[in-house]
């Protein structure tokens, strides 16, 4: 240990100098490194330590840099400073960083206590060795080019590289798993479904390499391959069937899910897969499929909560696209550079927004409609749409003709009415009233309640009555509306004559209307009124007699107040006021002919049918670039706050990761080309690692989500590079990559382990054996349905709602309810289960599935009691138990063979002697229980929705259901081994 020197009174520079001397004195006797150990690598061994402990203050982030020192750049770390160099190659005892890291002086030690960080002795030793060995600098390993190792010898390259790593620990590849186990493993890994025992036995009879290869090819060609592997991609794409946030309403984005399944089944090369999803719309003459692919980045959330700022959530969505893109392809976390320059990886604050600028030019703007969208109609739907439109036009035409005829017939009666000039209008609550040809129209603000004050100029003569005509107006949908909300309510009508001596209130009597009771509008009670809410699509009129006819010697002004206090914007939309000089009792409101009303109703129904149709049309959110004159200028968001914008930035990619390829456009298409450019070392590494992790449980780089300085180092860097190069140089074919991995002996190893193996490779990161892990949420479900014979093979289409406990969807605004599916849709693959972001299907999240809210790079596997409750008690698994019981009972004859049949259907492998015995006795005891209490058997059959197979009693069959339920809960069944 370094002796403590009382230094606190000295100036800092002298204190550091003293420290170095003391340090040198104290360390000369330390011998470097363990003899025979491999040299320390900067990129994989040292850089992560420096990144974690030093870069926060001495890294890329200029703003927070202390002492003007950066340790992420070789020239600076080795530069001579006033009292020495941080790193002196070959001379650890002269290297300031070591002196500072080992100091006992709280003012001196690095990292300082305030950083809440601690470097371990082992880490310091690593740095010391690296300096002693010459302090050779490298870039972070994952940023270096992919170098494909040359493999000598006869072994398959993967096996050669794995064996070489194992040999260093005196280990070797283990034997092959049994043929049936291997078949089950292969099926579950490639298509997410189990084989049948018959298929496995057939393979076991001829377990030749050629037969194995045939099976691999056959599985890769199955449509279920795409369904299974799509799940991995949809986790990354943060796919969900709703928009997220508070309202979390549905969106129809499932055509994108089907696109992914199809693309995977077609083995679309990664470069094309990337380009179409990121920028399909920017390709020349894009096909409809290429447009559908762009929904990838429309899986971002839309916030429909009242009072939200659309720009705030548009920006959030764009940032999500930026972060997701970097995560998914580059394995880098860019998120922190939103607020400040990345502390560990070379991404500056400005570079973040430069990259953001490339994504910041799309039309979508957090709108309720999710616009822009693409309507996807089947030919049948197109026909239906046309039919609905034709119907509306035909009814409208007939209606217009009938109305014109009716107007003509009414002409004589209508001549009794005079239209006075409107001299002034006022809306008390802020609506805009405009007058044209004596007709007043309300527009603009639509307050819930309002008072319209209208001044008319009455001509000289007699006026016996006032008529209010509430007229209709065409809405954007084409429908007619008489009120601003649903109809209108005239709470009170009052009028005063404006005479030179002042205003004189007039009284109305004898109100009558074409529809409903108008006298409620002159009863002096604001709470009652003339309401036409049940017929809001047609015009209405009411006549109010003046209590005493007005006889004017000269023209005079009449001020009419139309009070409308019912709320909900039940206010007049368009209206006209007229007076008459005819005898009041000769004036009647015009009642439309019954045929006319019928036709109007028909039109209303036709519009409703069209609206219902349009509400249910698939509108897929998509990416569309803004027109040139509408392009946004991107500025830095200070501290990540979109309201605090700094300097403008030019679009581009972070400098540390190369430029856009020559000729690539400065937009999303350019980004796609940059990501899959052969010079980019990250994309192939990240993808190859991801595929490996799905097959082996853990990636070669365990932190699949972080290939940056803070991530974990590869456990077999050469293997990773071999896979990455193979994938990239072999046409970016996922199927070829999978095939080469599953054909290896490494993949085929038996997964049973021993104490010795667990000691030398506890987490099996070296592949010293096959891997055994619990299946994914979807596979747990699909497998149970499959062995029970219930699984539907229907592919694609809208998401479905298998049973879930009642009352789960109590979200703030229920726009859609969960209705348990019946028939085939009850038993579809887990991929097709409706995923509501704020209330995901519970059993999926219990088994570590995500909610689609953010990009999910890997699911961390857990083992919990809640999972046990699902597979024991969820109706889905109970119905599957009944399905399996039925197969056991119908496909075998006695207790022994039935139990064995069930176990084999589940486990696939041949059974060991006596293995089914516990199941046989369980069935026997259960049957006794049910025979003693037949009502329980009845109840179980009912809750399992089971039909009784022929030739078996209810208690016996109920007992088989219990037995099947046990089989579906076996650890081996839930695991892939």
């Amino acid at each position: 240990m370094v002796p403590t020197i009382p230094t606190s009174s000295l100036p800092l520079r002298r204190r550091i100098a003293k420290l170095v001397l003391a340090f040198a004195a104290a360390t000369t006797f330390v011998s470097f490194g363990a003899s025979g150990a491999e040299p320390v690598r900067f990129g994989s061994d040292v850089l992560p330590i420096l990144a974690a402990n030093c870069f926060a203050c001495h890294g890329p982030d200029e703003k927070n840099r202390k002492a003007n020192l950066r340790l992420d750049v070789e020239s600076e770390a080795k530069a001579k400073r006033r009292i020495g160099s941080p790193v002196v190659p070959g001379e650890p005892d002269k290297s300031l960083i070591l002196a500072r890291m080992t100091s006992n002086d709280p003012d001196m030690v690095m990292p300082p206590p305030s950083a809440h960080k601690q470097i371990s002795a082992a880490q310091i030793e690593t740095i010391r060795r690296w300096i002693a060995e010459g302090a050779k600098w490298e870039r972070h390993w994952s940023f270096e080019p992919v170098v494909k190792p040359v493999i000598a010898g006869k072994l398959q390259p993967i096996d050669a590289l794995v064996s070489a790593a194992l040999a260093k620990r005196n280990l070797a590849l283990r034997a092959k798993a049994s043929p049936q186990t291997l078949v089950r493993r292969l099926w579950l890994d490639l298509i997410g479904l189990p084989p049948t025992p018959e298929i496995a036995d057939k393979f076991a009879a001829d377990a030749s390499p050629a037969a194995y290869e045939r099976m691999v090819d056959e599985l890769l060609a199955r449509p279920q391959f795409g369904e299974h592997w799509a799940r991995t991609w949809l986790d990354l794409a943060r796919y969900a069937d709703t928009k997220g946030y508070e309202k979390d309403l549905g969106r129809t984005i499932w055509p994108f899910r089907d696109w992914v399944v199809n693309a995977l089944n077609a083995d679309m090369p990664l470069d094309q897969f990337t380009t179409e999803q990121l920028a399909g719309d920017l390709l020349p003459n894009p096909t409809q499929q290429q447009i559908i692919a762009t929904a990838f980045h429309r899986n971002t959330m839309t916030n429909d909560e009242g009072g939200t700022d659309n720009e705030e959530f548009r920006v959030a969505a764009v940032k999500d696209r930026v972060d997701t893109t970097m995560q998914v392809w580059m394995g880098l976390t860019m998120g922190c550079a939103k607020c400040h320059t990345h502390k560990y990886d070379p991404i500056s604050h400005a570079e973040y927004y430069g990259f953001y600028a490339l994504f910041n030019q799309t039309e979508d703007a957090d709108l309720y409609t999710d616009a822009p969208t693409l309507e996807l109609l089947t030919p049948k739907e197109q026909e239906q749409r046309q039919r609905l439109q034709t119907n509306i036009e035909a009814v409208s035409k007939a209606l217009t003709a009938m109305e014109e005829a009716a107007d003509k017939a009414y002409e004589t009666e209508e001549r009794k009415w005079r239209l006075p000039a409107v001299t002034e209008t006022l809306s008390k609550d802020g609506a805009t009233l405009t007058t044209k040809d004596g007709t007043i129209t309300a527009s603009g603000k639509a307050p819930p309640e309002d008072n319209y004050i209208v001044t008319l100029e009455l001509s000289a003569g007699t006026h016996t009555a006032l008529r209010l005509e509430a007229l209709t107006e065409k809405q954007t949908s084409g429908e007619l509306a008489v009120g601003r909300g649903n109809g209108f309510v005239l709470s009170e009508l009052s009028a005063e004559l404006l005479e030179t001596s002042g205003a004189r209130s007039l009284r109305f009597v004898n109100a009558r209307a074409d529809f409903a009771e108008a006298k409620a509008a002159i009863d002096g009670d604001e709470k009652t009124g003339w309401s036409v809410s049940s017929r809001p699509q047609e015009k209405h009129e009411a006549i109010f007699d003046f209590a005493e006819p007005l006889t004017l010697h000269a023209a005079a002004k009449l001020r009419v107040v139309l009070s409308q206090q019912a709320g909900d914007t039940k206010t007049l939309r368009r209206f006209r006021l007229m007076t008459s000089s005819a005898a009041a009792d000769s004036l009647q409101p015009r009642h439309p002919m019954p045929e006319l009303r019928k036709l109007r109703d028909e039109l209303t129904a036709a519009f409703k049918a069209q609206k219902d149709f349009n509400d249910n049309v698939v509108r897929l959110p998509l990416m569309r670039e803004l027109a040139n004159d509408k392009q946004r200028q991107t500025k830095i968001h200070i501290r990540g706050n979109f309201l605090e914008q700094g300097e403008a930035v030019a679009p581009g990619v972070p400098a540390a990761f190369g430029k856009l390829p020559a000729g690539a456009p400065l937009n999303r298409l350019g980004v796609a080309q940059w990501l899959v450019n052969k010079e980019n070392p990250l994309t192939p590494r990240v993808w190859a690692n991801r595929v490996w992790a799905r097959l082996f449980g853990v990636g070669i780089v365990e932190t699949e989500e972080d290939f940056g300085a803070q991530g974990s180092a590869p456990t077999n860097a050469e293997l990773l590079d071999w896979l990455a190069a193979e994938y990239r140089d072999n046409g970016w074919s996922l199927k070829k990559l999978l095939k080469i991995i599953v054909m290896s002996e490494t993949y085929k190893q038996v997964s049973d382990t021993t104490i010795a193996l667990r000691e030398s490779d506890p987490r099996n990161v070296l592949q010293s054996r096959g891997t055994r892990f619990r299946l994914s949420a979807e596979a747990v479900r699909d497998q149970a349905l499959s062995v029970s014979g219930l699984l539907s093979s229907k592919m694609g289409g809208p998401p479905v709602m298998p049973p879930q406990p009642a009352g789960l969807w109590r979200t703030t605004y229920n726009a859609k309810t969960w209705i348990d599916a019946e028939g085939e849709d009850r038993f579809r693959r887990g991929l097709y289960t409706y995923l509501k972001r704020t209330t995901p299907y519970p059993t999926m999240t219990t088994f570590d599935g995500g909610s689609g809210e953010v990009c999910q790079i890997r699911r961390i596997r857990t083992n919990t009691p809640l999972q046990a409750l699902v597979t024991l008690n969820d109706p889905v698994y109970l119905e599957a138990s009944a399905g399996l019981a039925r197969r056991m009972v119908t496909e075998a004859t006695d207790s022994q063979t039935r139990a064995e049949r069930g176990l084999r259907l589940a486990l696939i492998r041949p059974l060991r002697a006596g293995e089914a015995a516990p199941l046989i006795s369980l069935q026997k005891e259960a049957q006794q229980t049910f025979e003693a209490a037949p009502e329980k058997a009845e109840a179980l059959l009912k809750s399992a929705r089971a039909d009784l197979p022929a030739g078996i009693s209810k208690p016996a069959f109920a007992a088989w259901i219990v037995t099947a339920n046990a089989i579906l809960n076996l650890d081996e069944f839930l695991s892939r081994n």
Partner: protein
Amino acid sequence: MNDQILSITRRHFFKSSGLGLGALALQSLLQREAVAKPQSNNPLAPKAPMFAPKAKRVIYLHMPGSPSQLELFDYKPELQKLHMKDAPPSFLEGKRFAFIKGVPKILAGQFKFKQHGQSGQWVSELLPHFAKVVDKTCIIRTVHTDQFNHAPAQLYVQTGSPRLGNPAMGSWVTYGLGSENQNLPGFVVLLSGGKTPDGGKSLWGSGFLPSVYQGVQCRTTGDPVLYLSNPAGLDRNLRRRTLDTLAKMNQAEFERSGDSETLTRIAQYELAYRMQTSVPEVMDISKEPQHILDLYGAKPGFVAQSDSADDPRVLYKGDDPTFANNCLLARRLVENGVRFVQLYDWGWDHHGSSLGESIDETLPIKCQQIDQAIAGLLIDLEQRGLLDETLVVWGGEFGRTPMMQNNVRTELRKGYVGRDHHTNAYTMWTAGGGVKAGLAYGQTDEFGYFPTEHPVSIRDLQATIQHLLGLDPYRFSYAYQGLNNRLIGPTEEGKVLKGILA
């Protein structure tokens, strides 16, 4: 738990809790543990805090929608003088509101205030029971946030980020401390008010933490925990027999495969079996003596008419005991060793723009629903000696404006008096678990608009809660995506509120 995953989480834990173990030593320790004791892989086993804690558990009462501090806790007579006058420009310049448009009018506090208890704190007439226990609480009048929409603001309070994907506070705490009762979930969520809060289940999601730490919503109708009941016709004896069969066959599988995960699964099935009795037992409040039920105003077995109605607000009644039942449950849960109990009581968003969401008519009903229950909870915790070690937190996700909301109506109308969302200052209170009792912390200006003394950010609040539980908010972290993620976020802005510590 899978041992590879276990060691991931353990390594993170050790790394982040700064126990100072060398990485190599730790690695070998983990290896030894994994080899020697495969069955001890319980991620919810109790863990020692990072330093001596003041509180051992939390009951967090969140009022989604956000109650008005100006009607409940922050007494501002000055508003009376300016009632229905235009708000001054200083209230509006550079401010963003959810619904207020143009120049709104000032709205006086709608209810009377009085000083209560020895501490002399101002409490509204709407909370007569709370007023009697005010000396047990620490009222913070200066909480401020930077989110003014419900879902993001709730997420910010509960997960430290206004966006989705981060672990809930309860998940953090159970991850850090484990749970003291292995027969119950460690982090339980109870809902009332007829709706799930705006932020949805993400408010109790485990984010990037393993899903074993997610909150478990316990329901008062149907299965208290999803799929807890055996299917009809399958009785407990038969379930026991099934599990015995499973255990036997799984044990044989373990002996063959050597995968310790199989042993964990056997243990988890046994735990599930115990939960089948322990959860309904703890959730059954009908066994509580009458005087305890009366203390809270609880009514066992009550199903509110408003429950799961399309819009429950118009059906709210003052004597609805759902929240009271949940408070009593919360006490039973913490008494049984549950680490974090989170209550959400929906229906506090009093804009006044439509029926059932007004300050003048709905707020008094909501207060009736919670007032006695909260006072009962504090009294009951105290009389059982639990209050000292149980931190109780109450509050919404933001406050409400001193101005009347004006986007629908510009005039006062009965049943339609409302206030918009307000982020600059609002009231929360805490009690028990190491917090000073009878303290009024922080001051706001004469309109209740801005803090004038001791502003408290959401990050401060989160840092303080963690500190009280013995978790260092700066060092307690989880490495994910290249970052040491913390509840308080990446910056050092969050400060432990030393002034409220007992």
